[in-house]
């Protein structure tokens, strides 16, 4: 009898926590939506290519070579993925260190995005490197303290752990583990400070990696300021990602959002937009200081120059201006539009630095391999599904701070 009771309890727990209170049959029925079927198809096509990469090696799925060291896995997954995952440290700093407490409703979504972003950056890295069991090598076995990769490896590993700690209060709330929750909340400030140090260092370290190849990177993008440029652009990229993420979740999953947040989200969006506009102006000027430093003005008239102007004009100046107008007109919709232009702009910048403008003068350069593109789309799909899975279950956009409540 006791066994039966514990079995019933177990099944209730599983149904409540994992199946959203449904039976397995109902849950599977609810899952059969066109979007889920499409996602399943993408994964079914992509997974065999990932297996292929491990069985036949990198050459089976990419055109990467010594001349083209970074394919889509690293250009997209690591170099573009990491600035998009800067959300966590930006919001945690704003709320816990700068005391901008009204932004608290955005901390958990931002930390979750950051954590998932970094986690999948590591997945992309593992697919690119192969031999996952050797992942700890650059960190503990054959580390070189003079290597930027040593820095990146340690930073990403530590920061991933820190972000998990920062997000853990939501996990413990979900599991109703009160003591662990209290313990995790107590760690928040420490984890935030540690996280800020780590993310400042490694966002810029990704840029610093290219300082090792001054002759290989096109002079319009190569500059000793690269670490600073990477860090500053990660800030407004992260802010834009938070704006877009909140807009999408509030629109597509309104049931998972605390109703009170709907009244404040426009104000918070505008605050983030204003901060992004200020950061983007600084970045815009830094970009031209970098060009002046390299004295690369004549190159602006070349085809790479046009790409540079498109990136700085179309994806920094234009969205920056829209952010300013959004702030002045108090229009959250305009701020969302600006954010939707800003994020692709930062992605374009990272793809350019790590792919298009690297070894730009070599003949016979290849574009991305189609299989590589399929693998990247597969990983992005899994990433989005994981995010949705967590938001559907854990108190990410819900839950009041413990000290304010309605009785």
């Amino acid at each position, binding site marked *: 009898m006791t066994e039966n009771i514990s079995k019933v309890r177990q099944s209730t727990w599983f149904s409540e926590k994992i199946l959203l209170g449904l039976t397995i049959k109902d849950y599977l029925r609810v899952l059969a939506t066109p979007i889920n079927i499409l996602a399943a198809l993408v994964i079914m096509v992509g997974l065999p290519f990932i297996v292929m990469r491990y069985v036949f090696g990198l050459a089976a799925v990419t055109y990467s070579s010594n001349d083209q060291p970074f394919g889509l896995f690293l250009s997209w997954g690591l170099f573009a993925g990491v600035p998009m995952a800067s959300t966590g440290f930006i919001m945690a700093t704003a709320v816990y260190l700068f005391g901008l407490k009204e932004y608290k409703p955005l901390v958990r979504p931002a930390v979750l995005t950051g954590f998932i972003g970094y986690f999948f950056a590591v997945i992309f890295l593992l697919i690119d490197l192969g031999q996952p069991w050797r992942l700890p090598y650059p960190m503990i076995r054959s580390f070189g303290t003079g290597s930027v990769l040593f820095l990146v490896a340690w930073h990403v590993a530590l920061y991933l752990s820190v972000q998990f700690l920062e997000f853990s209060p939501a996990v413990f709330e979900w599991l109703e583990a009160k003591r662990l929750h209290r313990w995790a909340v107590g760690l928040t400030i420490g984890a935030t400070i540690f996280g800020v140090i780590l993310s400042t260092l490694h966002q810029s370290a990704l840029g610093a990696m290219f300082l090792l190849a001054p002759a290989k990177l096109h002079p319009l993008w190569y500059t000793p300021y690269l670490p600073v440029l990477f860090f500053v652009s990660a800030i407004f990229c992260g802010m834009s990602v938070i704006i877009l993420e909140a807009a999408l979740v509030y629109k597509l999953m309104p049931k998972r959002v605390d109703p009170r947040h709907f009244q404040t989200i426009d104000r918070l969006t505008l605050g983030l937009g204003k901060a992004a506009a200020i950061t983007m102006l600084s970045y815009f000027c830094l970009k031209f200081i970098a060009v002046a430093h390299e004295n690369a003005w004549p190159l602006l008239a070349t085809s790479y120059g046009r790409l540079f102007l498109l990136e700085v004009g179309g994806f920094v100046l234009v969205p920056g201006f829209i952010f300013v107008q959004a702030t002045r007109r108090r229009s959250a919709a305009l701020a969302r539009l600006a954010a939707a232009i800003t994020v692709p702009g930062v992605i374009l910048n990272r793809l350019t630095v790590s792919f298009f403008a690297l070894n730009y003068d070599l003949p016979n350069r290849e574009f991305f391999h189609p299989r590589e593109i399929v693998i990247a789309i597969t990983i992005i799909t899994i990433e989005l599904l994981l995010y949705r899975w967590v938001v559907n279950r854990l108190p990410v956009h819900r839950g009041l701070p413990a000290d*304010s409540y309605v009785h």
Partner: protein
Amino acid sequence: MHTLFEFVTYTKSVEYLIAVGFLLLFVAFWRYINTSPVAARRTATAPSLASRLADYVGGFLVPDQTYFHPGHAWVRAESGDVLTVGIDDFGQKLVGKIDTLRLPKVGQRLSQGEPAWELGAAGEVFNMLSPVSGEVVEVNPNALWTPWVVNQDPFGDGWLLKVRTPRKTATLRSLLGTDLAKRWIEDARARLLVQPRHENLGRVLADVGPARDGIARALDNEHWGEIVREFFLTAEDEHETRSNP
């Protein structure tokens, strides 16, 4: 180096020029981003500075068309039979930065003079009395999430509840109108002066903006809770129900 162009190019002066240009641009940018056409329109319809200053009594805001309950809550008439309720400027300055608020739920019934909500500041919790009787129809989510909005804008964004009352006119008549309230606030200010450590009062009251630590704490760090309860009419020896002033 023959020309100015070469001088500027080879000495890398352009970098410095861009940096200086950036700083100048930033000044213009900052002014531009902070002047909103929407805000300008609002300011145009807002009352003049002179009339706003006239709303202050001894450093405490007592705006027009607002009614007051002696427990330092205010009431404003909305359309229909709805009244908006909040904490007055004296009340928020007395307690200082409000950290927590515990408000009644939508649908809950309030009785005039009965404890209606709780606020927490610096580790102390205070009850406040409802200035009206009726049913709560809306709770300010901003005040719940960020209670210090009450300190920033007690009569605007810091409102607490909207209450539906069947006897709106009679309720408003039972409260203090602006003129009476100004005299009452003057009296309350005078009562602060009889507090044991009133020598700090001049300094405290000179701060017309939101005093972070609150007037009561500045007066007496040990017994400040009692001072607040005395003014909120919730001191322990006053158990009886208080209604009309």
